[in-house]
């Protein structure tokens, strides 16, 4: 990465001439990225993949709010590539989605991204071409804010989670299409059947199995793709990424989940984590023992290790098939105990939207006051995964509802309140229902029953505030990512609802988010699980009627003619 003379100049000018000149000066950094074939060593296996500047993960790009960035991306691959700046607000031509924002970057070609940085916080970037992202094409972005941050910290680390698989993305997709359970090695076996008979009796066990068998679905279907090695900053559990601290320092950890398919439940035994930002936006601080980070989400937490000892950063995959491990230590080489993963969850009929179908579509703001008398029918035998407090963002009786390993506080979406709302709060002008649909057996994923290739673009009007109603009709959890505009997650906090770029929708639930349609052009909107997006849970969004749309249309026509 190189900074240009211009940036050096403006920095120099600034220090020499003092603050009076500041408003007329603009930071302008130039960054060079190469897209390369690389070797990825997870400590468990070594696999050829794709990286940036010769490495996967790629570099941490450090921008400043207000900076005008120029990023030269040179494609050294023998296939088309692209970079999407995940979570960044920018002109759509710079968004990096082939066929939507631009044609893509051909082999040997260098594409120059140029856009202003209008926000701050923790973000990331990745390829939006084929399966290059699961193959390793990702890096992180840290944007320094103009104003002082609303919290103190002495150290600052990016903690980027990924799920490196020994198979290439293409091969994984093909295997899933041949046999949807190809990678599910946590299916219920004959001995599970016998132990369930012992526990719940023969009748109940058989009925339960028949219910799932009747639907031809599996209670164990939580992670479509297993067999990966979780990495933190590119390092496997044995390679143990380590961040150094001095006792009593405040350490800011920027959690980023750049996995293809894997949600992580993250904890640091012995430390409380104070969540201060989500998806790059400050939230009102909330202190938790554990949090679940969905694919493509980011959380900033502050921890304050007081003792002169090592602490393990432990990220168990949601399906408990693997864990990521890193360490915070006063000195290099120190390690702490690696905790056991808590019990593997199983889906329940609630996750299928079966038992409590009447509750789908419920308003989350009123859920806390909900009458629980109607919940007697729920199957309590499957509730072991549930915390003491119900999380409004999981179906009642869900097998996926998380609980902190130490019995403490687990972060819920309901805890996320904006520190400083980006937009004036107002009523949405229109509601759009997006049913998240799919067929696990065929490994087809879709929105409103229609795959991307068969779908018309979703048209939004510039200036409107759209309320998206996500109804998850599948048994998978889908992290829905809208490019180019914020998704204000309805946690029932009105004007304090947090602005996010990725909204995780658990099975059997309905979740709302609102978007101020303030960015012209065409954008991608999709499930961020790589293989779901590729299978069809994807939409093109076209924003019409913006101030520049007339010229935009004519230029498009020009291209077509």
């Amino acid at each position: 990465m190189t900074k240009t003379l211009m940036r050096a100049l403006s920095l120099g000018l600034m220090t020499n001439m003092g603050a009076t000149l500041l408003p007329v000066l603009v930071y302008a950094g130039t960054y060079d990225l190469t897209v390369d074939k690389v070797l990825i060593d997870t400590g468990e296996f070594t696999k050829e993949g794709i990286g940036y500047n010769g490495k996967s993960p790629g570099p941490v790009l450090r921008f400043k709010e207000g900076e005008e960035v120029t990023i030269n991306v040179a494609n050294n691959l023998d296939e088309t590539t692209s970079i999407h700046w995940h979570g960044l607000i920018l002109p759509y031509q710079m968004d990096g989605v082939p066929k939507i924002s631009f044609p893509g970057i051909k082999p040997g070609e260098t594409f120059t991204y140029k856009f202003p940085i209008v926000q701050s916080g923790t973000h990331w970037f990745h390829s939006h071409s084929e399966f290059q992202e699961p193959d390793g094409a990702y890096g992180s972005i840290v944007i320094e804010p103009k104003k002082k941050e609303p919290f103190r910290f002495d150290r600052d680390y990016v903690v980027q989670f990924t799920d490196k698989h020994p198979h290439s993305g293409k091969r994984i997709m093909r295997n899933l299409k041949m046999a949807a359970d190809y990678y599910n090695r946590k299916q219920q076996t004959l001995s599970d059947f016998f132990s369930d008979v012992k526990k719940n009796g023969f009748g109940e066990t058989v009925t339960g199995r028949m219910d799932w068998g009747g639907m031809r679905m599996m209670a164990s279907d939580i992670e479509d793709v297993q067999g990966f090695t979780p990495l933190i900053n590119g390092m496997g559990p044995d390679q143990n990424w380590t961040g150094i601290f001095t006792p009593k320092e405040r350490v800011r950890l920027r959690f980023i989940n750049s996995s293809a398919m894997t949600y992580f439940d993250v904890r640091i035994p012995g430390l409380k984590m104070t969540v201060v930002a989500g998806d790059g936006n400050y939230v009102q601080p909330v202190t938790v023992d554990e949090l679940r980070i969905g694919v493509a989400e980011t959380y900033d937490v502050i921890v304050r290790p007081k003792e002169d000892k090592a602490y393990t950063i432990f990220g168990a995959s949601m399906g408990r098939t693997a864990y990521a491990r890193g360490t915070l230590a006063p000195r290099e080489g120190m390690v702490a105990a690696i905790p056991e993963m808590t019990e593997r969850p199983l889906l329940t009929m609630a996750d299928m939207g079966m038992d409590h179908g009447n509750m789908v579509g419920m308003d989350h703001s009123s859920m806390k006051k909900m009458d629980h008398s109607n919940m007697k029918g729920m199957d309590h035998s499957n509730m072991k995964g549930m915390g003491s407090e119900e999380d409004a963002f999981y179906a009642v009786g869900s097998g996926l509802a998380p609980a902190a390993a130490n019995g403490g506080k687990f972060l819920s979406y309901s805890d996320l309140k904006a520190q400083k709302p980006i937009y004036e709060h107002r009523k949405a002008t229109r509601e759009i229902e997006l049913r998240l649909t799919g067929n696990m057996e065929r490994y087809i994923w879709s929105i409103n029953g229609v795959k991307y290739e068969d779908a018309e673009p979703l048209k939004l009007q510039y200036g409107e505030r759209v309320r998206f109603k996500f109804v998850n009709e599948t048994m998978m959890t889908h992290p829905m990512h809208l490019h180019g505009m914020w998704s204000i997650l309805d946690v029932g906090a009105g004007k304090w609802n947090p602005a996010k770029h990725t909204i995780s929708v658990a099975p059997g639930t309905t979740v709302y988010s609102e978007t101020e349609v303030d960015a012209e052009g065409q954008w991608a909107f999709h499930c961020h699980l790589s293989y779901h997006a590729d299978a069809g849970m994807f939409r093109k969004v076209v924003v019409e009627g913006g101030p520049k749309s007339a010229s935009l249309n004519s230029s498009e026509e020009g291209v077509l003619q």
Partner: protein
Amino acid sequence: MTHMLKLLPATLTAFTLLAPVTSLAEDPANIYYGLQIEEFEYRYGEGGEELFAYDADAFIGTDELKLRWEGDGEYDINVKKFESLSNQLALQTPISDFWDIKGGVRYTSPEGPDRWYGVIGLSGLAPQWIEVDSHLFLSEKGKLSADLDMEYQILLSNYLILTPSASVDVAFSSDREIGVGSGVNSVEAGLRLSYDVWDRAFSPYVGVVYERKFGQTANFIEAEGESADIWYAVIGAKFMF
């Protein structure tokens, strides 16, 4: 086999003509392909009979339309003859969440006379995870027949899998020339214990297979000095690519 090769280009053309219909807009439909060899085995029969048997299946296509080849055969190692040999090429499309229909042609070319058939089929996943594959055949001689295959997997562990299977062949009229009598003419039941050694790509197994011929078909077989029912011990492997 040469007939088969002549047929291939025609079917491929039909396939490429049909494929664009399935994708209206934005992105072209994703094309997938795969090869599975469910059975690839050595069979040792009660009376010292030795067979090599296989059952394979390959496809290419989209979610909406696939071209599927299915082939199976039984080769008698002692007499160096194919007891059965069949190749089928069909187009396959979903009709519901779990069921597909297919239509195409089948060609059987064991030792003795060969036959062409038009075929329609239904395959899919029945409730309780029972895999079903069935066909209705109309031969070039105007004879109608059908088959039905079923398979179920019992997970002893996530790698050690016991697979019971059953198949039935029915003919609605006899075709003496190829040794087929009318009615239920053969039943085969198998039980195979496999272990996934390399992903799901390579899974060796051992097992037993029971085969029984009925009615006129049995008579035809017995006339050739063979037994109408026989137990085999089998050893082989499953492949998936």
